[in-house]
């Protein structure tokens, strides 16, 4: 029985890989190879990027005898990835799955259902966690001095560590579920709670990372200082060195924490999964509503969906929050940034090149906004509504694009204004930086929609599946970063031949061209695909 449940959960987790959702059939042959290759390339690309950082840290810390500190840093980074990968969908996966009622009506002990659901969360977290731990382990094998036992432990550690990610995710899931059954503005509160949790984690993480600046000179002192607070990761690192006792301590603590959380989780699962005390009943007051145009009605529909789903908001719209925060932080630390500018200018050998760097950073941040990427999949079983109503399919797609822009453009503008105040660039950059940012934002919206039309998934049991575990979302998120890196890298050979301002003009032209091409595809071919989903 439990095997069947696990199988069902894994099919759901990996549905984006094996299911050609447009036709609701399994991918076989070439299609499967292509999907695996695409994900493989994406995974490898991210691993390679992180490998260079791991290599640097490994080469710095291992000769100082601080192997444990190297693993502690990498583990903390992987926790960030794992948490991003799983923490926000735990509540939805455990308690809001559409098949909860069906499964609970079957002769299955509720704890089996819970275990199967937890397996899904574990695998999601592990996938993201491995993006860091895999290159970290490879770097350790290449540039460290692993013993045989250390090598075996190093391979096993990410799988144990993922239980820690699972524990943190469950803790938040439990907290959210306890609150969510009693409140009216569920999505808003869950979003704030989740962001608070994330903020707290990042605060602790940034505190640690800020110490890394002095690492080369005082790494030993820092390691000694943080050994106590990072007791768990100290033993993780020692285990990688081949210390059996540390492996035992690390595994015992992680599994102990997991079991301690599992106990209340297991006891409350049935109650929380079936309770909807919800909000107090809202009285209906008759009021005449103004007539809207079809496009406006569709836009309002999209916005309502976005604002009603904490999974959607947190995962796809985190950048909307980060952009103004980044802008305000720049204003707060204006003096520090301005002190840094001459150093950066000297480093770049050209004052204007620094502006390109800032524009690239802003684009990196905007890649975290991918609201359109799951928007087609999120139509789910409701898709019959727009398909049966007299609406042109392309208008539905326009509304999705508009939603992305309505939500993201104000945030981008706030960030752009703050950035421009702080760096006070010359006139061409004053115009080009915001233009490049807005074009990048538009490209992200179009690219997300394009990917989702290419890889739609209308069959899911909770919204976390299309929002987190889908090809379109992963490619949109990492594609934005890849695009920024590619545009940045392209400047290196042109440096000296093309002025930064001209280069930014060329970037804007490329972005505009890509936007035009994608828009044309969406309004013709994309609309055709949407109509036949």
């Amino acid at each position, binding site marked *: 029985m439990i095997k069947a449940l696990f199988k069902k959960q894994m099919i759901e987790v990996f549905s984006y890989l094996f299911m050609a959702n447009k036709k609701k059939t399994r991918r076989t042959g070439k299609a499967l190879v292509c999907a695996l290759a695409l994900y493989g390339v994406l995974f490898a690309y991210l691993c390679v990027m992180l490998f260079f950082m791991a290599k640097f840290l490994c080469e710095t810390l291992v000769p100082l005898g601080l192997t444990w500190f190297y693993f502690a840093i990498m583990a903390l980074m992987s926790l960030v990835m794992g948490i991003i990968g799983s923490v926000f969908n735990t509540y939805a996966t455990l308690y809001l799955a559409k098949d909860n009622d069906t499964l609970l009506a079957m002769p299955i002990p509720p704890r089996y259902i819970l275990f199967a659901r937890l397996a899904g969360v574990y695998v999601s977290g592990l996938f993201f966690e491995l993006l860091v731990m895999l290159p970290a382990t490879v770097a350790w094998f290449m540039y460290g001095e692993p013993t045989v036992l250390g090598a075996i432990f190093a391979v096993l550690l990410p799988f144990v560590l993922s239980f820690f990610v699972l524990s943190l995710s469950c803790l938040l899931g439990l907290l959210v579920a306890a609150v969510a059954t009693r409140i009216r503005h569920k999505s808003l509160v869950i979003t704030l709670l989740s962001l608070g949790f994330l903020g707290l984690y990042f605060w602790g993480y940034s505190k640690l990372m800020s110490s890394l600046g002095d690492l080369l000179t005082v790494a030993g002192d820092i390691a000694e200082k943080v050994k106590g607070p990072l007791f768990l990761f100290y033993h993780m690192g020692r285990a990688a060195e081949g210390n059996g006792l540390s492996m035992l301590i690390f595994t015992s603590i992680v599994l102990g924490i997991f079991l301690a959380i599992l106990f209340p989780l297991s006891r409350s699962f049935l109650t929380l999964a079936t309770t909807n005390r919800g909000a107090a009943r809202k009285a209906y007051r008759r009021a*005449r*509503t103004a*007539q809207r145009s079809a496009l406006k009605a569709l836009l309002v529909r999209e916005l*309502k969906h976005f604002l009603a789903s904490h999974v959607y908001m947190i995962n796809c719209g985190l950048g909307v929050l980060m952009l103004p925060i980044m802008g305000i932080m720049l204003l707060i630390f204006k003096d520090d940034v301005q002190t840094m500018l001459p150093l950066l200018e000297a480093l770049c050998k050209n004052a204007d090149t620094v502006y390109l760097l800032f524009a690239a950073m802003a684009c990196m941040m905007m890649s975290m906004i991918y609201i359109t990427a799951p928007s087609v999949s999120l139509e789910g079983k*409701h898709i019959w509504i727009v398909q049966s109503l007299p609406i042109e399919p392309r208008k539905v797609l326009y509304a999705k694009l508009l939603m992305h822009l309505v939500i993201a453009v104000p945030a981008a503008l706030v960030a752009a204004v703050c950035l421009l105040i702080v760096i006070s660039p010359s006139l061409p950059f004053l115009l080009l930086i915001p233009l490049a940012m807005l074009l990048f934002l538009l490209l992200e919206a179009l690219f997300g929609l394009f990917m989702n039309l290419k890889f739609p998934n209308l069959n899911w049991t909770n919204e976390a599946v299309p929002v987190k575990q889908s090809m379109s979302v992963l490619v949109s998120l990492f594609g934005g970063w890849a695009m920024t890196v590619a545009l940045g890298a392209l400047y290196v050979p042109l440096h000296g031949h093309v002025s930064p301002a001209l280069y930014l003009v060329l970037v804007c032209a490329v972005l505009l061209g890509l936007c035009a091409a994608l828009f044309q595809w969406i309004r013709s071919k994309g609309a055709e695909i949407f109509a036949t989903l």
Partner: protein
Amino acid sequence: MLKIEHLTKCYGEKKAVDDLSLHIQKGEICAFIGHNGAGKTTAIKSVCGILRFDAGEIYIDGISVKEDPLAAKRLLAYIPDNPDLYDFMTGIGYLNFVADIFGVDAALRDERIHRFTDMLELTADLAQPIAAYSHGMKQKLAIISALLHEPRLLVMDEPFVGLDPKAAHLLKELMREMCREGTAIFFSTHVLEVAEKLCDKVAIIKGGKLIRAGKMEEVKGDTSLEAVFLELEGKQ
């Protein structure tokens, strides 16, 4: 009002609907019956422009669903067998959304919404999110949304499933009233007694093929619709 001509729809190798032809006039109620998997839902979804079909033609008041789907959709309303509505909207939000799409003006929609929600006893729940609705309440909301633009063709897939006896009775009354005003109604059902009492026409589908269609009295003759249906099911 509805003219289906040689409709064929395939899923891969399998013909879900095979050369189906059917005509329904203004003011007629036609029941569409058949066993599970016979092709009823596929045919209905093709009529509503949700599914593209492989061959044949469908006309709604002379407008081709294939050539001008938007114009055809403006004339019809569709109620699915399982009303998966937007959980993130309130009842009144959903009705206003549908009214906006059909371009029903504010005064008219206000009057219609409250006439139908009062009739189906849903007015008090209009401010609740649809997520909090029962299956029956969702079904009622889907029915009300389908009536807001006064469709000339009403297409329903198992409309009585989930409705309480009173609501089912009211829906039947509503269907009769709409027919008197000239609306054509095409609906699938497994409740043969309802079909027999309510409908002017009946179409029986099996394995994607229309095996019997015509005036109710002609099809059932001196026996019951159930007897005819069971006999046809056994024969084929």
